[in-house]
């Protein structure tokens, strides 16, 4: 029987992220996803004769920001080069890129898979301009070219081939996307193409130190598909080796419907890009002061916040993780706890009623109608016993959303939601219930403690839901002792 070798999959990722600048990298056309074709173009984008590029300041700031957040070394002496090749969506016949002199080198992104933390090293992050869009299937005879996207600023984040599994690939892309969004550098939308991923994958026998022949899988449109592509391709490569076939370096694409990769082209005729420093642009030198300023502008990242939430505020690891997945959610949460120190309650509100509302209305937190302060007031009302959590979340909250200028406590009073928690108003109701359910009282005294909830329920009914269940419970217990 043939011995099955153990194989190791080696993966490196090249991720292109579109920067959230207002205008393009080398000219003032607006960035606009989904706009009508060829409506965000200028003579510069169209590569008209005589046009020249000029660098967008903001794009550089964003690239450096991402580099610092990934612990990269920032290159001080930078310039752009021309990458020469011909394609219809590349108007100049060259792409202006920093491929040869990246602004950020080294660095890493930490991922956690099955409880194990790993640092995935980065090779570089560099800036370049995006190409336009070629649409091949709209017309039989022609390819349609839309140059709106041509010139959009991108950063290319290249990892070392440190990833070893589909799960790690998934984790890495998730972390990367989260970081980009945290920094407001990219919105990370893979479906819309503002985040694109190419996978470089090879397999080798475990223990082997040389890398196997690598295959490139391009243009994956979701993190999940990237993961699946890795699974599918690593199996395909292993099968090829087992069958004694030679793996050739090639570019493939992933067919998500059929779960297979398909060859697009062989890498044999690798293009000679003839890179040279672009003479139309000046070098850009980054001073320490500039880099520090960018460093200061980086918000607290997830890791730091989790430490704070678990350490200072005693929230669970799980809750902290959930609250900090998105910076905007974390920021909102932190705004709530400026007005209350009931961190646990604030956490519950965020992950409960607030999250539900966002999901139901398909909105982001910046569209949530209530200020963080108002949510804090709701928490205080519940904390003080004036409101049950249930009334606060299912009755008062919707009311406040409908009436944005209303004050929580006043509204609660107006809406008759304030709990009855004083004994004098509750006792008559309790007496009523105990009288009515005398036989149940007997059962309770005989040991059937579950009947208590019936009594509480009945009191709640009679109070039209306003009875404070906790106080009701206590009073009932006292009465039943007698």
């Amino acid at each position, binding site marked *: 029987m043939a011995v099955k070798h153990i194989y190791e999959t080696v993966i490196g990722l090249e991720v292109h992220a579109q920067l959230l600048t*207002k205008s393009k990298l080398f000219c003032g056309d607006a960035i606009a996803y989904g706009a009508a*074709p060829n409506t965000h173009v200028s003579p510069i984008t169209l590569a008209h004769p005589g046009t020249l590029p*000029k660098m967008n*300041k903001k794009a550089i700031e964003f690239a450096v920001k991402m580099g610092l957040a990934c612990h990269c070394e920032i290159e001080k002496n930078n310039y752009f080069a021309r990458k020469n090749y011909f394609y219809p969506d590349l108007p100049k016949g060259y792409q202006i890129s920093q491929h040869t002199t990246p602004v950020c080198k080294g660095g890493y992104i930490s991922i956690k898979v099955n409880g194990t933390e790993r640092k995935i090293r980065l090779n570089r992050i560099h800036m370049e301009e995006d190409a336009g869009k070629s649409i091949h299937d*709209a017309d039989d005879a*022609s390819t349609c070219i*839309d140059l709106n996207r041509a010139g959009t600023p991108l950063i290319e984040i290249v990892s070392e081939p440190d990833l070893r599994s589909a799960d790690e690939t998934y984790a890495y892309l998730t972390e990367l996307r989260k970081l980009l969004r945290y920094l407001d550098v990219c919105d990370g939308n893979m479906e819309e193409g503002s985040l694109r991923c190419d996978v470089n994958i090879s397999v080798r026998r475990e223990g082997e130190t040389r890398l196997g022949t690598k295959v490139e899988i391009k243009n994956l449109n979701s993190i999940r598909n990237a993961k699946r592509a890795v699974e599918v391709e690593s199996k395909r490569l292993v099968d090829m080796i087992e069958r004694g076939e030679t793996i050739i370096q090639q570019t493939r694409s992933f067919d998500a419907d059929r779960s297979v990769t398909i060859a697009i082209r062989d890498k044999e005729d690798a293009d000679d890009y003839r890179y040279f420093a672009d003479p139309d642009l000046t*070098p850009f030198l980054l001073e320490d002061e500039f880099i520090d300023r960018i460093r200061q502008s980086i918000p607290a990242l997830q890791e730091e916040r989790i430490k704070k939430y678990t350490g200072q505020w005693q929230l669970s690891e799980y809750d902290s993780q959930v609250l900090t997945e998105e910076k905007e959610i974390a920021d909102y949460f932190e705004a709530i706890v400026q007005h209350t120190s009931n961190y646990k309650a604030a956490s519950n509100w965020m992950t409960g009623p607030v999250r539900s509302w966002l999901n139901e209305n398909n909105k982001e937190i910046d569209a949530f109608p209530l200020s963080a302060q108002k949510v804090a007031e709701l928490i205080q009302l519940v904390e003080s016993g004036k409101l049950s959590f249930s009334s606060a979340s299912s009755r008062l909250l919707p009311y406040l959303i409908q009436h944005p200028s209303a004050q929580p406590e006043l509204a609660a009073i107006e809406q008759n939601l304030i709990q009855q928690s004083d004994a004098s108003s509750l006792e008559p109701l309790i007496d009523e219930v105990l009288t009515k359910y005398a036989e149940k009282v007997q059962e309770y005294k005989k040991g059937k403690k579950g009947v208590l909830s019936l009594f509480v329920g009945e009191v709640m009914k009679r109070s039209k839901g306003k009875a404070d269940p906790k106080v009701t419970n206590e009073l009932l217990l006292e009465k039943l002792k007698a």
Partner: protein
Amino acid sequence: MVEKLAHLARLKFNEEEKQEIKSDLQRMISFVEKLNELNLDGVEPLLHLSDEVNVLREDEIKGSVSREEALKNAPLHDGEFIKVPKVIKK
């Protein structure tokens, strides 16, 4: 080599032209070989002639033209897209 260079530059030459270009290139190459006579150890290549650095622009929206203007010179378009003969996928 002429074939490879022509392909990179997206040019084509017939047999006669190819011979001419080949000899032109050879003459030019011998001509520029003269540069090998110089000792250039320790000399940095001049990459940028202008002495300006950090020439940047603010992230502002300006300068776009109407689609009509943009497509005005396109040899083939349909009012929305520029059209090009199909890219043949191998």
